[in-house]
């Protein structure tokens, strides 16, 4: 585990300019977001937003090419960069356009898995903390979602990144993913959701039908591989009276074993992040201002520990 005391947020104003001058990978970044220049306006119509020092937030930034992007980032030194949608017009010119004509048109399909959404089933940490006892949740989440995106939906270009603090993001960059409507994104996010319910629902996974959909079956298999190590050894999920009590409240049902395993380990997605075509999401290669951590890329399979 990294030594947290070695990062001092006060140094950020001095370190960021160096990072943006020497380390930020403008070339590959532009190459990605340009998508081969098809169509030519793709990059210049992309919205970026910057969070500057003292939490000043500015939207509708756009750039005509890599050079302009580089220049502006180095000049502003944003603490955070978000990537938004590709619009019908250059975002930086949006005020000169009729509101009804300025539309978000395309964007990658994205997913956000946040560790705080697992607080009711984590025994080791809560909030923004992560340790090696609960990081497996992210590994399981990545494996399950990635398999589905690839094998069920046929998506080929999937980028998984660690957010720098408490979760992971996935960017699906296939052309048909970028062209999805809000309806489509919402449908995919729902398909991938199995854990539902607020604080008033103790049992959050309900597999009602007789047979298990192949997606559920395959996800359960992935959970089973890691369940003993994660839930039993690391989380000790039945380890005391209070934890056992929670499960005794679950009614008997045909797939109770699977339901319990899924409630403790299945990925919890924030559907709102995925469904909006214009939703802004933190860019890869940002430094997280609170942790100083690089927005690392993880490869799928069982990713390495980045925190």
């Amino acid at each position, binding site marked *: 585990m990294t030594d947290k005391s070695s990062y001092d947020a006060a140094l950020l104003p001095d370190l960021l300019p160096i990072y943006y001058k020497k380390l930020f990978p403008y070339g590959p970044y532009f190459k990605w977001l340009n998508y081969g220049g098809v169509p030519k306006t793709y990059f210049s119509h992309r919205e970026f937003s910057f969070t500057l020092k003292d939490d000043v937030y500015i*939207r509708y930034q756009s750039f005509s090419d890599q050079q302009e992007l580089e220049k502006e980032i180095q000049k502003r030194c944003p603490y955070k960069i978000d990537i938004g949608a590709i619009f019908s017009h250059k975002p930086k010119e949006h005020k000169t356009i009729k509101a009804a004509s300025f539309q978000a048109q395309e964007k990658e399909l994205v997913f956000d898995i946040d560790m705080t959404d697992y607080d009711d089933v984590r025994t080791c940490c809560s909030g923004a903390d992560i340790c090696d006892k609960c990081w497996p949740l992210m590994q399981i989440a990545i494996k399950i979602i990635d398999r589905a995106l690839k094998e069920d939906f046929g998506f080929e270009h999937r980028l998984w990144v660690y957010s720098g603090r408490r979760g992971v993001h996935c960017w699906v960059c296939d052309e048909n993913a970028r062209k999805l409507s809000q309806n489509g994104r919402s449908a995919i996010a729902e398909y991938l959701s199995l854990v539902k319910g607020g604080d*008033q629902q103790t049992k959050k996974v309900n597999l009602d039908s007789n047979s298990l959909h192949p997606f559920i079956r395959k996800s359960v298999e992935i959970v089973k591989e890691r369940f003993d190590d994660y839930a039993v050894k690391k989380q000790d999920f039945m380890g005391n009276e209070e934890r056992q009590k929670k499960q005794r409240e679950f009614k008997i049902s045909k797939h109770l074993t699977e339901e319990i395993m899924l409630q403790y380990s299945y990925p919890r997605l924030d559907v709102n992040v995925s469904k909006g075509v214009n939703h802004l999401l933190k860019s890869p290669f940002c430094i997280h201002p609170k942790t100083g951590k690089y927005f690392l890329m993880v490869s799928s399979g069982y990713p390495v520990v980045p925190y």
Partner: protein
Amino acid sequence: TDSNTDAELLRFDVTSHFILRLAYCKSEELKRWFLQQELDFFKFRFNNLTIDQKQEFLLANSLDYKPISDEEKSSILSDLMAAGGRNAATMDTQEFFKVPFTEVFDLIQRRRVFLSRGYAFVPRDDLVSIVITHYRTQLSHALAMTSRALPHLEEDNRLLPMLSGLSKRYLGEDYGTKKNNAGQVTADMIDMLSRQSFPLCMQQLHQACRRDHHLRHGGRQQYGLFLKGIGLSLEEAMKFWKTEFMKMMDGDKFDKNYSYNIRHNYGKEGKRADYTPYSCNKIIMSNAPGTGDNHGCPFRHTDVDLLAQKLRLANIGKDHVEKAISFVKGGHYQLACKSYFEATHPPLPDGEDISINHPNQYFDESRRVLSGEKKEGPRLSQPPRTPASKSTQPSQNTPQSQSSNPTQTQGAPSSQLSELGEMEDDDDLLASMDS
């Protein structure tokens, strides 16, 4: 049947559809509602056709799908069965169609279809879903076009007045700030009012807020707008939220992260729309609570056993508890809420009845009953509700009138300054600002 009557009926049908397009194209919420109704209606009509008529319809609309071969079917047979919940007996005769997943979003949403490598294997019975997806895209596009064309209609006397009345006609009360109760409720009255007159959903949120000194975004929206609807002014709302939240955070953090949201709900930021409090329909059907959330409808979103326990602890009497629970089991959440109302209030005056459609209505009825007022005249049952059309600014803005005011008079935190601009859907930004 008489072919003249048929032609006449068809004409009415088509005309009414286009009238509704005009009336419901103006805002996102209206469009969404209309789209949903049209799709449900279409599905109903399509499913009533015979197999031949369905085939005819598909061909006429160039939706000519061919079923997969027997070999392909048998190679994925067990997955097809598991996905659709079918047994082996029906599988032999059932034809399956392989279509790109983008054609059947509603089947995907409900996970009712087998997916492989981007293709969905759709049984003949579910072909309607493909058609629906196409219809949705088409109608959605048409509504957007209509809405853009509307300002160009060179007349303002014949159609427009009628249209703007149309979408509001089935409304019932929407509890926007048009009500003249603003300022009637102050922050220090809320505890007492919550015990006496809040519906269970808002009591739950209030208790969670007092307990945790915090609420997540969904809860702040549902509860905050309700409070606005009962007459809590912006100033008092700030007082309420800030006092409570400051038990867990300092004032600066509150100002930075939450004050914008509150002012936004009161129409003082961004689009400056008058956001209306959520109706029961909205709370039950959309916006389901997730981990850590306390919003939603307790009758819909609470485990039945836990709900029964809560109701018993609320001392409302065994009969009322049983009544409420049996309504919940039957899916009649608003009737369950009504039982709760009946259990916690003196009996309604003779001849009166209420049906709960809106948390603010529950509150108003409660205040009325507790103060002994009688209603004038017999109570009519509510017509079906449609969403309120928001009083947004007209979609055509000159560049000057559209610019958001970057400078704020108080020492406002700089986090919300500069080009926040107009958002397509402010809710997205607000949700993402939830730290």
